[in-house]
């Protein structure tokens, strides 16, 4: 009897909690999502270790033998110029996080702002301009756009980042625009307007915070897309200019596999697969947890 009362009380507390607390609860119950989060956490620790100089600092040394097999000294072996593949793989984790974070944060911020402006001023010239810009950017094939930008910004180390941010914000912007069109008819917006709150304040203080569940999910999706794109672009010679990344390691391996050397290919692929898979699991779980239709 007391058990039934406790369950009823818990259910009541849950149903009375905010969307965020319900989402956190739901997320914590998703096993795959939690495993994904744990793996992402491990990658993050690896990346932070590289950032703070704890490990991965010998990625550019060429003191090893050519194509050494995995051993205690070289855990994943060495490449053709004697570089330690383990050191390069973990250093690339930092590069992946740098690219993922920079692109995810900036494209989400831009998408949120432009999407909110377009949605709030839907049907006006502001909306027209944002939609036109989005349409133009979406109509250009991504890799062609990156190549053109890399050529235009010759020598600029972050042309890949610029290209990704310029193209990845559009989806976020479209989703936010739709959400804002819905929100601007809500009573709290009407009330703010009636009280004379400036429109930009309404957008940034009252409306955008209510799109955070979309932004969070979009940011995780963009994070993964950015990492995958970086690998492809680096493989094509359009990505990381100086340094190392999993894409560059795979590009190096195209010649090595012909000579029967697979360490570069295998380990860069394993690291990439692990992070992308984990982030996808986490992203799916987050999407489920933040879906207003399922959070009740």
């Amino acid at each position, binding site marked *: 009897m007391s058990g039934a009362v406790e369950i009823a009380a818990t259910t009541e507390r849950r149903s009375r909690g905010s969307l965020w607390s319900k989402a956190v609860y739901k997320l914590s119950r998703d096993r795959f999502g939690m495993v994904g989060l744990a793996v992402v956490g491990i990658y993050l620790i690896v990346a932070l270790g590289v950032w703070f100089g704890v490990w991965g600092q010998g990625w*550019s040394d*060429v003191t090893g033998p050519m194509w050494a097999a995995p051993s205690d000294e070289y855990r994943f072996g060495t490449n053709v*110029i004697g570089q330690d593949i383990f050191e390069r793989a973990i250093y690339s984790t930092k590069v992946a996080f740098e690219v993922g974070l920079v692109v995810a944060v900036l494209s989400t911020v831009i998408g949120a702002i432009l999407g909110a402006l377009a949605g709030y001023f839907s049907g006006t010239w502001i909306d027209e301009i944002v939609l036109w810009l989005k349409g133009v950017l979406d109509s250009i094939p991504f890799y062609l756009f990156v190549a053109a930008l890399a050529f235009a910004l010759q*020598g600029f180390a972050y042309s890949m980042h610029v290209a990704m941010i310029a193209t990845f914000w559009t989806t976020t912007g479209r989703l936010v625009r739709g959400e804002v069109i819905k929100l601007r008819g809500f009573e709290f917006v009407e009330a703010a307007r009636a009280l004379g709150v400036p429109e930009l304040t309404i957008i940034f203080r009252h409306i955008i915070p209510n799109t955070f569940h979309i932004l969070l999910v979009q940011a995780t999706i963009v994070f993964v897309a950015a990492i995958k794109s970086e690998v492809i672009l680096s493989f094509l*010679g359009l990505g990381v200019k100086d340094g190392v990344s999993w894409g560059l390691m795979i590009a190096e391996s195209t010649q*090595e596999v012909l*000579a029967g050397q697979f360490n570069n290919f295998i380990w860069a692929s394993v690291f990439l697969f692990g992070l992308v898979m984990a982030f996808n699991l986490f992203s799916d779980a987050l999407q489920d947890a933040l879906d207003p239709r399922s959070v009740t």
Partner: protein
Amino acid sequence: MTSTLKILGALALICIAMAGCGDGGGSRDPAASNQKVYRHSMDQAPVSVDPTQAATVYSNFVVLNVYDTLYAYKYLARPYELTTNLATGFPKISDDGLSYVISLKPGVHFIDDPSFPDGIGREVVASDFVYSLKRHFDATTLSQAAWVWQGRIVGLDEWKEAGSDYDSEISGLRALDAHTIQITLSKPYPQLVHTLTMGFSALVPREAVEHYGREFSIHPVGSGPFKMERFDTARATLIRNPRFRAESVDLAALGFDPALHAGLGLEAIEGRTPPFVDRVDVNFVTEDAARWNSFSKGSEIQFAKIPTEQFDTVLSSKTPPTLKKELENRYNMVDFVEPGVIFNTFNMDFDEFGYHPDPAQAERNTALRCAVIKAFDWEQRSERFYNGIAKIYPGIIPPAVPEMDSGMSRDSVTRDVEGAKQLLADHGWNADNLPELVYGVAASVKQRQLFEQFRGFLTEIGYPSEKIVLEQFATFGDISKAWKQSKLPFVSKGWNLDYPDAENVLQLFYGPNGSPGSNDANFADPEYDRLYEQSAVMQEGPERTAIYRRMNEILVDSCVAIMGLSRTNLLMWHENVIGYPDRNIVGGFWLRYVDLREE
């Protein structure tokens, strides 16, 4: 009955269709028509086959097969030796070395082509040579070879300045009669005959140039052993020129050496008249892996350079390169050190590494360059990128030319990390004050790895990794432009000899050739320049060799460049192909001697 007729009708249609397919396949299959077809491969496609554009080995290769030059290199002789081609003999040179008289073989004809009256190719005459050389000095031709004769033939530069009127005569370039050419030089040019072996100097008929206009670049009309049937980015198809002059093969005169060429089956062409194959397909395959797959498949291309990644698969030993037993009966292989040099040079225009107005700082800069040279590990470079079988030597003169000095000290190509550190310390260099070194590369995995290896060498002598900066260029053309404009402090490049004379590499450091010329180092040493000018007008001989070697020593002593290395090339071709397919220096000239064994 009706249904039987329908069935018979359907069967007849199927038979007709199959017969049609069979015919089509047969006409494409050379074996069916008993044609001899040799399928060659190259790693790039030429953009043009107009001799004025034959600046790449790919273009030169095709040009030398569809056109004729006055001279050529002997097919098999190594070191390379000159021989006659369209000329009857070597030129008669005046005592002052300024006048060359060359006689042409009579009775040589261009291929039949609509540009000639009645479509019948006319005889090749001396005025065709005069016209062909003039084209390089016609601004509308956009020739890539004017530099070869610029400032050397009397009146030629003035002819250009006067508007390039082909009907006006040039005193230094004349056709004395139908078969005699006279060239008058403004100063001695001992390499002149070498330049007359190059595709640039090939003889073209004026009628065809005027008839085809811009399309002449893809519609060659020459007197070479082959004529072009098809040309695009995938393939050039050359078919035997039925009117090619009949000259039987004298193997000894071509440099045949039984000790070197045994087993290649070359004896079979003795006394016969080339060309020996009916058709040559030159396939342009840019990817190493694709080319190798096509070659090793057996039924496709019959010649390929062995990709470095395949060495262990193909060779049982690298020194000397030896084919694996199971491959010996299927393929022929030849190895040779390429006539070229790979080197890295500082750009002396940058005062943080090169020349400096303050003598003390200039001395420190020299010490810095010498330290970088000491840090460079040529052995490792050869092992990692050239399978450990490249030739490493001090200076810029490669082993392919007789002027190379094998007795020179090897200190400049021997790694000395401690010596480099000491040199830096003695001259006040440390991690804080070492200058930033920008290393340019054309975007490719290999170029990036070469950079990373170089950076690794320098970090071992205490050069901060972050001060060795990579700058990527989209294409080789882009980085080449940056070199020409003197925008990079460090130049990493290779140079293939145009002709077998050390002058061709020594000119890379001649002061007046500075940017945008070929002297990317912008090296300017008074003694070096004086010796270059002195040797430039000398004929080959011990005295000139001594001067060349002294110039080489000046380069090493001034620590202007990290040099040098020549790659060992391994070429393979199918066992049923009789030939010696070395395109270096000889160009595509050897293709006329290729034959196929009867199956």
